[in-house]
């Protein structure tokens, strides 16, 4: 019941906020671009089965920050350095991790029941398709087992590969007419820090984390519904713990070394190639150290161990309930002019 009451009141509130901010933009000074944009908006999609599903996007103001951790930060690892200046343009970020409800809507609409058979032929076809038009999104193959892993609609979606998360964003973009994507690693850390310079983005006392995060000490070994803890200063929930979040970048332990050569690095997108991608923020079983704003993690080989087949699924990390994502979106050039 609580879920329904909260769903029914949110869109109204945010619609009002959205209209106010649009109105505010139209009468405001065009020079401070961040301020002209809606501070947040609610996106609502209708699933194939007719359900309305909403999520909130919040404007992350552009700015420059120190990415990575200082040498003396407790729990620091080498790949978090050197600390370097990064400039990030304004963008929108979802206030929550992508929910199962939304991910299931995508799965139902795009699932491909075609299975691998003559694999070489199939591979060729998929490559051609991915080059081709976006109208024909070929979504995930059926998951072996239960995609929800027993979790409810408002829990974060999980167990998808990075590729699957990317195709989800493509689907959502097509569905809404706005270009959704994964945040870059720099955007993610910038949003997590929310303008602060301390270890966790909320203050110096690590004990406060209990109020913000589901992690090893309070999660009971499972994910929890999104947005049940306090948001950070910029209104983002569960940036610490619950599920790890895929970001756009390939992982490299030397990524910061390279980024530090340009100061500041402007909207960096990580290494141009690599084998695995970065997943930020720690999960429900993480220690406090893994929840630090600067802590990095990436896909490891054992994440595939729930998949006994070869070739491994391009879409699923079966049984891996600790990996999810949240959507970001560029501020489109026309938005800063028209206040769309």
């Amino acid at each position, binding site marked *: 019941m609580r879920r329904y009451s909260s769903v029914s009141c949110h869109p109204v509130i945010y619609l009002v906020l959205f209209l106010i901010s649009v109105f505010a933009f139209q009468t405001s000074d065009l020079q401070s671009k961040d301020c002209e944009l809606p501070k947040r908006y609610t996106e609502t999609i209708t699933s194939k089965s007719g359900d309305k599903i909403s999520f909130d996007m919040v404007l992350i103001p552009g700015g420059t920050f120190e990415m990575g951790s200082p040498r003396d930060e407790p729990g620091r690892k080498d790949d978090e350095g050197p600390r370097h200046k990064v400039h990030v343009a304004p963008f929108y970020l979802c206030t929550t991790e992508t929910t199962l409800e939304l991910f299931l809507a995508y799965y139902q609409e795009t699932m491909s*029941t075609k299975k691998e058979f*003559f694999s070489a032929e199939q591979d060729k076809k998929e490559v051609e398709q991915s080059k081709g038009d976006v109208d024909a999104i070929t979504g995930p193959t*059926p*998951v072996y087992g*239960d995609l929800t892993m027993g979790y409810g609609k408002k829990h974060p979606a999980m167990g998808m590969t990075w590729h699957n998360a990317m195709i989800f964003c493509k689907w959502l973009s097509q569905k809404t007419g706005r270009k959704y994507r994964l945040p870059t690693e720099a955007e993610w850390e910038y949003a997590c820090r929310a303008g602060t310079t301390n270890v966790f983005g909320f203050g110096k006392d690590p004990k406060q984390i209990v109020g913000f995060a589901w992690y*090893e000490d309070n999660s009971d070994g499972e994910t929890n519904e999104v947005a049940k803890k306090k948001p950070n200063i910029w209104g983002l929930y569960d940036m610490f713990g619950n599920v790890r979040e895929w970001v756009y970048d390939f992982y490299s332990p030397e990524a910061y070394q390279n980024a530090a050569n340009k100061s500041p690095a402007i909207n960096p997108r990580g290494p141009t190639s690599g084998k695995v991608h970065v997943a930020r923020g720690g999960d429900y079983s993480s*220690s406090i150290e893994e929840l630090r704003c600067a802590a990095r993690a990436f896909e490891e080989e054992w994440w595939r161990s729930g998949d006994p087949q070869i070739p491994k699924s391009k879409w699923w990390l079966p049984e891996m309930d600790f990996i999810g994502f949240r959507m970001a979106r560029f501020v489109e050039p026309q938005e800063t002019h028209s206040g769309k």
Partner: protein
Amino acid sequence: MNASQNTTRRKFLKSTAALAGGALASKLTTGEVTYAGGSDIIRVGMIGCGGRNTGAAAQALTADPGTRLVAMCDIFMDRVKSKRRILKEQKKDQVTVDDDHCFAGFDGYKHVIESSDVVVIANAAKFHPLHSMTAIKAGKHVFVEKPHGIDPAGLKLLQQAAEMAKQKGLCLVSGLHSRYHTGYAETVQRIQDGAIGDVVAIEENFLRGPYGVIERKAGLTELQWQCSTQYHFRWLSGDDVPQSLVHNLDRSSWAMGNKAPAKCHGMGGRSSMTEPIYGDVFDHHSVVYEFANGVRIYAFCRTTNGCHNDSSSIVLGSKGKSSILGCRIWGETDWRWEGRCDPYQREHDVLFKAIRSGKPVNNGDYMVRSTMITVMGQISCYTGKEVTWDQINKSDFYYPPKPEDCRDDMEPPVKAGPDGSYPVPKPGFTNMI
């Protein structure tokens, strides 16, 4: 230490492969048994070249550095060749299959068995008993995937194969991976030790989307078409109670102290998977099993889009309950297993360790029992009749043709009607046993 190595997880899964491989490497020269004419190399052959057996072969090659993949077969040569290429990319030095040891067609398995010391079998479940028996007769070790057969006649043959393996000191390892999951094993042990009191009932769910379908390519004969999409044909796969619920019912039977139920009644049918491309299988089943002591298992499986999904094994006790897949107990004392385990890799780690040490492992007991429990339930769903454990064990029913009678040029046993759809069982009218 890496970010996620020091964490604990709800369900899994730490590969012991590297560890086991290292330990075994040092034993290579001291093994009691030698292979392939006195060398320490163990020759592995693949019977079936689908995704799962390719995974199993990779796990075998990972488990023991002295293994070599030497022969492969499948109904289709394309699959043999493409999987050889993929495996070679991953295990370059251990994949030594030459063109002369790539076999296609129903009889390919005979040649693979001849060339190997160990065979890994994952193909249409109809053939699992015959291929296991043939390998064991020839003195070869066997890993075979679930389900371990689809009918009573096949499972009787597998029972004989398991006994023969014991006499000959050969390994027979089952792909019922729950038994190799250390978290499930500890949970079941606690149930058996009374952590939730007496078991009152068990709920088993495997509700999910359909098995993948493939387009029917031009040029395939009807027989090739059916073999290429074998999960959708009963005479090859045995349908979804054996295919999916075998894992669930294996856990139930295990939690009940490795016992079989006395009887069952089931129901099933087709609701949405009705097009010809879905063959002649049902898309939903429910089976109620009853043990001699009155305990019941309520078991459900479904392969349908857009419906509730669930994969669970819930054991209800007089003093609590347990989720075996969650590795959890809620009782007088709540408990949760914390750790990681890759049961698929463990199956092979155990198998090759047993081969090297000369102490054979034989899973015949539960592999036959658990599969027979599913066959009994499936047949009850088709016939609409109650089926007892005695009845199913006395039956000689098999889905024709017998596996040994399958020929590459034969007509398939089921054919589509004028509208392209295949006949399906009619509960209340269909007789099988």
